[in-house]
């Protein structure tokens, strides 16, 4: 991650945190336990592709911890964030386009790739994030049914919202 990557990512960190904490948390609280919108994982996904896994794990943990402070669930989002930072590397490997990644696409955004590719990547990424998050939330696999239900509902709600965000801001870096 070079210096030029710092600002866009710092802004995404701050913006997504504020959005998540101030808006989406309140929406989720007022509607119900199955209405969860999780968009902060976008920050983890949109870190430069070449970022070392150790760093993405730490940054994922950091944004999760920041959100946890406001959610009052210390450790919950942090664990899910660290997990997302970890699996990101493997997802890039699975979703590797023909000819591999070149230095011309520093970030996994539709600006460099296409929407189809990005939607697929985001779908799997968010699903895994939600699954880990709700597993840690339940903290036991006794409630596997509830975990699945919450994961699917949160994923189905967050996906369009995250895509909308990317579409609206359409980041270039």
């Amino acid at each position: 991650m070079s210096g030029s990557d710092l600002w866009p990512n710092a802004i995404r960190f701050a913006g997504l945190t504020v959005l998540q904490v101030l808006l989406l948390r309140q929406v989720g609280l007022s509607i119900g336990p199955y209405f969860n919108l999780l968009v902060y994982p976008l920050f983890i996904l949109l870190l430069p592709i070449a970022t070392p896994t150790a760093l993405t794990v730490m940054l994922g943990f950091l944004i999760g911890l920041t959100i946890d402070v406001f959610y009052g669930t210390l450790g919950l989002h942090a664990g899910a964030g660290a997990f997302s930072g970890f699996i990101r590397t493997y997802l890039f490997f699975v979703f590797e386009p023909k000819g591999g990644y070149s230095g011309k696409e520093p970030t996994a955004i539709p600006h460099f790739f296409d929407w189809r590719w990005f939607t697929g990547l985001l779908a799997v990424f968010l699903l895994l994030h939600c699954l880990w998050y709700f597993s840690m939330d339940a903290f036991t696999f006794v409630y596997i049914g509830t975990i699945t239900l919450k994961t699917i509902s949160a994923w189905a709600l967050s996906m369009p919202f995250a895509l909308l965000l990317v579409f609206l801001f359409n980041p270039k870096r």
Partner: protein
Amino acid sequence: MNNLLQLFIRNGGFITFFILEVLSIYLLVGNNQRQGEIYAHSYGLFAGKVLNWQSGMREYFHLREEVEALRAENADLRTQNINARLVEVPYRDTFFHVLYDTLTGQQGLHRRLVRPAYEFVPATVIGNSISLNNNWLMINRGTADSITANMGVMSDNGVVGIVRHTDAHLSSVMSVLHRQTRISCAVKNKSAIGSLVWEDNHPRYMTLKDVPRHVEVAEGDTILTSGYSSLFPGGLLVGFVEGNPKTDRENQYFYTIRVRLTQDPADVHHVYVVRNLFRTTIDSLEKLTYERQ
């Protein structure tokens, strides 16, 4: 250190992930009520299992001491038990005619004097043979435990042998499977006694001789020690009659009875040495008897 660094470079992602995940679970459990309760519950179950396992292991390692203690206690109980069945001597006081009981300590007309006559010393068999013509055992008790020659050795299941030679901490025991063995035995509930000897080479069977033929002995009858020698107290289980008793070829008025031992001589581990507290008296009396003959 260099290797460690290499390891981190290669697996840094996973190591970071693992550490942070552990940290987040730690935070989660410590700061959130529900997860904390689930954790405490699961930990309780797990810790219970581990503690159970641990105490099982500890018991296993202390088994030896436990066995020693139990056997010492067993020997004590046997001593009490066998002595309780023993001689009741009316005790005449100067003024009263009282029967005295030292066991129960009760006073009254039915008090009895119980004269302790036997003591049991627990021992472990450390050497054994069964295939020779004359077989021997070695036990881990000797003169230091007040064991001398010509003491009976028994186990929980029956007779084992007779002490022959003693060292400070070891004794060699003449097994019942020895040509010189002669143990005074009785047939239970029949007033017949005989001598138990080892004639055929089978390591589980002995022969009871000198039982007169007018006594009806049948297959399955119980053979006990008679208590007429100073080696064993009376009434100890020795074996069961195997097959129909045959007439002794050497003396047609007597039986030769095949006895299946209850204590397999091939499988003895824990034994008791029988100390007869009146042995010197009995021996000197016997000696006198033979001299006057």
